[in-house]
């Protein structure tokens, strides 16, 4: 079996409720800051839960000239602005036709559809309502003229995007890929989760005995991917493997044994040519719904065997909410920063142990550790499961 071409994650850029660049995001994670607040940008008086991980003002970019008045697009471009600042990637330092864009989203520009159907029939609104519109706006902003791909595997979208980006590099279709995920809070998704009663009135408490559900958040998260042999300077780390699997069980609930996630983890390890014993740290999906955390714990135990009890497992959703299409990319970058900085961010609001969630979830405060190989898991509506294997620089 040949070893696949190694793909480096050279740099990353983010915009999140706890920080609008990678450094601020990291500092907030390790100090246990919370980005959950009363939602102010949207009308929420009719909703049962009115809090979430809202970005109060996208402060990175002062001049939005030429960028559509579309929240989703602006989150993506704000994250790209952070990425470009770190990687000196704008103007593009290489042939634009060799630069690809791959982004994951659960919602695309659906808020623009809401506005259009609410009476704002601007031509742009309807155009931006299409799921793939923000990705093309990002490519235009970057000046990238290579492939532009939008993936939408629900809450696993960010992981899928990083994997597809790596494929474009391995197949030689691109020499650099800007890949990640985004999603914006909007009435559409808040109304839906409100109706499903999946949102918590309490804090988001991943793996806690009292956990009562998730809160939604918004974010953009993008990484610059290149073939490792083409990278001459510093890098954040390496994307070693990816696996996906479908539950084939239920539209809105995970398969009770977590078999789909288990298959995705095994596939990711196989893709990386690694074994469970190589894994040093797990970034869990950890939504804090009663079902997810129990099922995810069971899947980790089966996929990793005894190693599951030996490695730290965290969830950052207590800090910023579930950022949907951005979540998996944010969590991947958090893993690489953990390896680089020698610190694992805590699982915020985890206070009371649940007998069914009996792994080491890093409660309380950040833990000194320098993991080398990391597993990041994602589970989405429709039974989408994804797993990434990452290696620190």
């Amino acid at each position, binding site marked *: 079996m040949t070893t696949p071409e190694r793909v480096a994650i050279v740099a990353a850029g983010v915009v999140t409720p706890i920080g609008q660049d990678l450094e601020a995001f990291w500092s907030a994670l390790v100090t246990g800051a919370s980005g959950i607040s009363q939602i102010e940008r949207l009308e929420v008086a009719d909703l049962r839960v009115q809090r979430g991980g809202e970005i109060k003002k996208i402060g990175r970019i002062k001049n939005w000239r030429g960028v559509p008045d579309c929240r989703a697009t602006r989150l993506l471009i704000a994250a790209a602005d952070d990425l470009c600042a770190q990687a000196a990637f704008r103007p593009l330092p290489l042939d634009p*036709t060799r630069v690809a864009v791959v982004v994951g989203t*659960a*919602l*695309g520009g*659906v808020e623009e*559809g*809401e506005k259009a*159907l609410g009476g704002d029939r601007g*031509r742009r609104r*309807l*155009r931006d*309502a*299409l*799921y*793939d519109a923000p990705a*093309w706006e990002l490519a235009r902003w970057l000046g990238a*003229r*290579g*492939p*532009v*791909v*939008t*993936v*939408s*595997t*629900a809450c696993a979208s960010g992981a*899928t995007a990083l994997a*597809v980006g790596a*494929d474009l590099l391995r*197949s030689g*279709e691109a020499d650099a890929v800007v890949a990640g995920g985004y999603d914006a809070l909007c009435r*559409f998704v808040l*109304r*839906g*989760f409100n*109706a*499903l009663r999946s949102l918590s009135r309490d804090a988001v408490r991943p793996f806690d005995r009292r956990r009562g559900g998730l809160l939604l958040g918004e974010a953009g998260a993008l990484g610059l991917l290149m073939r490792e042999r083409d990278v001459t300077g510093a890098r954040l780390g390496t994307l070693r493997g990816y*696996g*996906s*699997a*479908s*539950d*084939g*069980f*239920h*539209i*809105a609930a995970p398969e009770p044994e977590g*078999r*789909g996630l288990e*298959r995705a983890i095994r*596939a990711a390890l196989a893709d990386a040519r690694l074994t469970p014993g190589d894994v040093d740290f797990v970034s869990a999906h950890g939504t804090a719904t009663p079902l997810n955390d129990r099922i995810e714990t069971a899947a980790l135990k089966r996929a990793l065997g005894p190693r599951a009890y030996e490695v730290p497992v965290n969830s950052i959703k207590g800090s910023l909410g579930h950022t949907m299409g951005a979540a998996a990319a944010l969590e991947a970058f958090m893993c690489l920063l953990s390896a680089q900085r020698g610190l694992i961010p805590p699982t915020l609001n985890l206070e009371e142990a649940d007998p069914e969630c009996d792994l080491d979830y890093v409660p309380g405060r950040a833990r000194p550790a320098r993991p080398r190989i990391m597993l990041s898991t994602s589970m*989405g*509506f*429709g*039974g*989408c499961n994804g797993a990434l294997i990452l290696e620190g620089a």
Partner: protein
Amino acid sequence: MRAPEVRGLGLLTGGPTPGEGASVLTLERPDRPGDRFRRATRECLLALAAVDAMLEDGKATREAIAGERTALLYVTAAAYGASNRQFIERRGGVVHFAYTAPAVVPAEVAIEFGVTGPYGILIGGAPATLRAIEQAARLLETGTCDRALVLVVEIFEECADLYTTRRRYHRWPLVETAGCLWLEPGAGDLSFQSSRVVRGSSRAGGGERFAAAPVADLGEWLGRSANGPLELSGRWRGEEARLRWSRVRSHAGDSAA
């Protein structure tokens, strides 16, 4: 890259109608008491029907595609415009919300047919479908799966006005189509290329094609019992992609190059 072979193809199309509206596909919603989170939308029903048609074409039973060795790749440009609109306009309730992401279309197929292998969902027009076929070929070549399904569903009736602003780019009328392609390891060669059409060139405007177009083209080609290599192409938002396939179908022995 080694080309996959077509084991079956299911295609449902509304067929072209005059005017600017959408040519609509209709299917009855099956009554499944106690299963309220299933088959809530027309997109899902059409996906299931396309897979059934594919199995019929491949003269196979459902068991042939069940399990973790079957990959499922879904492509759509219209995505969930129709169902999202229903939810936004409060014509759909809680049940509808669970169906507001494109991911539920392949999920319905996975649940109904027991497909539990690798999956992917690409949003875009014809180039995304050609890319999905290439991804399927890669999954087959690396042994990640034994068979791959490429599913496409495009419906427009509920959201045709979303496309009016882009009318000059598309071929009208909007023809609703659902298709599913069953691929297995083959013997020929496959190559995929994509490029961006230069703005301002005579080729830049018009001719954009939705995700179902390459599957429909392939269906038409197979229907003619054509021989020789096949080239599928398509354009979307200025990206033009081409897929060259030296040997498309060998199990029936009628289309081998």
